[in-house]
């Protein structure tokens, strides 16, 4: 990612959400992106997830410049390689948890209906919602919706998982359960990019990028990675 800029035109004004961001993330890294609200984290993540195109600058994914890809190519890339957890979940309304999670596989013709259902159920079990399969999205709490969104990002077995404050609405214990899950996913060799406000979470990742005002303030590699599973064991068990 080289000198990425993203400007938004709002009426007469131009908002510079990203003012020249450059870095390289290697396969298998677990990166946390931190920064104050409005510093451009979500904008950056959208570009990384091929959902948005930068105003200028070059973003290469697997060595291919995303700019040169056609829209359908990008769509297939998102479908097969990327799992994205939105800050505001973005679930389909009036649709059950399983069906929401199945969604990416619906656009993958090579997955049969049975396999699709099995994989969606497994993903939901991994985020601890095995007992909420047929609840509709409007019948769930914020934390549950967030976990459905995470399950949806896992279901296509992506190489890269992008999560925008995926634990923002969860209690400490559930957050750590999710963090354990992400560390597991990381251990499986996936690349994880995790946006968060919580500095504690950064201690469980391999690298932290700090953004401020649309620029990289610092970029530190974490040499003392904590184990989320161990921490989870010390937390009191939720008794519900």
């Amino acid at each position: 990612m080289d000198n990425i800029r993203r400007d938004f035109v709002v009426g007469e004004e131009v908002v510079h959400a990203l003012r020249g961001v450059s870095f390289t993330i290697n396969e298998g890294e677990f990166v946390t992106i931190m920064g104050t609200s409005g510093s451009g984290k979500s904008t950056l993540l959208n570009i990384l997830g091929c959902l948005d195109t930068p105003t200028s600058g070059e973003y290469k994914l697997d060595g291919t410049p995303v700019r040169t890809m056609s829209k359908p190519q990008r769509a297939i890339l998102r479908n097969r390689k990327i799992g994205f957890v939105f800050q505001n979940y973005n679930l389909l309304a009036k649709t059950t948890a399983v069906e929401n999670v199945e969604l990416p596989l619906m656009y993958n013709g090579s997955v049969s209906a049975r396999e699709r259902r099995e994989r969606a159920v497994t993903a939901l079990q991994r985020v601890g919602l095995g007992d909420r399969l047929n609840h509709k999205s409007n019948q769930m709490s914020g934390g549950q919706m967030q976990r459905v969104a995470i399950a949806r990002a896992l279901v296509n077995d992506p190489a890269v998982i992008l999560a925008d404050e995926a634990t923002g609405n969860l209690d400490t214990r559930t957050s750590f359960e999710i963090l354990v899950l992400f560390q597991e996913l990381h251990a499986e060799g996936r690349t994880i990019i995790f946006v968060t406000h919580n500095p504690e979470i950064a201690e469980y990742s391999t690298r932290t990028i700090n953004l401020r005002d649309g620029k990289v303030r610092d970029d530190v590699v974490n040499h003392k990675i904590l184990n989320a599973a161990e921490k989870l064991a010390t937390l009191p068990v939720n008794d519900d």
Partner: protein
Amino acid sequence: MNGTNLFKIALKAINNNKMRSFLTMLGIIIGVASVITMLAIGQGSKQSIKKNISEMGSNMIMINPGADRGPGGARQSADEMQTLTLKDYQDIVDQAKYLSAVSPNVSSGGQLIFGNNNYQSSVTGVSEGYLTIRQLTVESGTMFTEADIKSAAKVCVLGKTIVDNLFPSGADPIGQVIRFNAIPMKVVGVLKSKGYNSMGMDQDDIVLAPYSTVMKRVLAQNYLQGIYASALTEEMTDIAIKDVTNILRTNHKLKEGEEDNFSIRSQEEISSMMTSTMDMLTILLACIAGISLIVGGIGIMNIMYVSVTERTKEIGLRMSVGARGIDILSQFLIEAILISVTGGVIGVLIGIGLSMLMKTVLHWPVSIQAWTVLLSFLVCTITGVFFGWYPAKKAANLDPIEAIRYE
């Protein structure tokens, strides 16, 4: 992409938005049903009038005295009304080539009396050919004969209505002597009932007598009120009219360039006059139906447009998890087709049902034609599909994140 998946997605989306889908369908249903019903009524009336006119007679040609002034023309002088004579009739009988039957027509109104019963009607003086021309048949008794005409015999043939009024007890009228304006006339036959025609005229209110009798004994006049004839076939009508015109012009000693002092109308002419009136009615009905089709279409357009705009977020989300523009388009197209076609089919069924109801309950003549069904169905379906597809196409061209952020 996997077609069945898209189909499932579309079905689910329709199911999740039952009210919206239903409202869209309603627009289509009303549009299709009203067009079918309106046109069925228009076409039905037209056909029934055509049928009635053809029942009036077979390939009838009507020759009237006086120049053709057209409908609403100035009233003609008494002189002009006396241009047709028995000689004209005889010459047509002798010389005309394309006619199967010819009959003079003289008629006089008056009172019919039998015993204590009387009835206001008229007696029509004709020849035997009249039965062929008007498609009448004698049900009991006989028609008067050539000999009766020669001798101007005081005989008559009655229509059903006359029989019912003069012989209410049900007695057999054959052989009885009735009086018409004090002239005694012997009943020799009774006509088979023809009922009312489409203009509400009683076709059984008729008394036929030899034309000679009516001319000599009733009216005391030597000219005819008209001559009726039947062409051999429908195709020969025109040539028959030309032929008769020539005979009459020679008879009347009309010079080249001089106007005919008689007029000839064919049944086809009357029929086409009537059907053109009906065509206007049909066009009027079609306009009304067309308006409801447009209103239905606008309804579809509106709901589809709002729904896609409202669902831009959903489109964005689908794209963000890997739906391509074409997948989104296909989904919305399938949705639109499902809704439009279902609505169209229901509309066709309701339209046909409504037309049938009018036929059985109101006894309106209706005729459902394949092209009206097809046309209304196509128009509505195309409207539905287009307005479902167009906004979806717009949304599918957005970047996923733009669509997702859309409020």
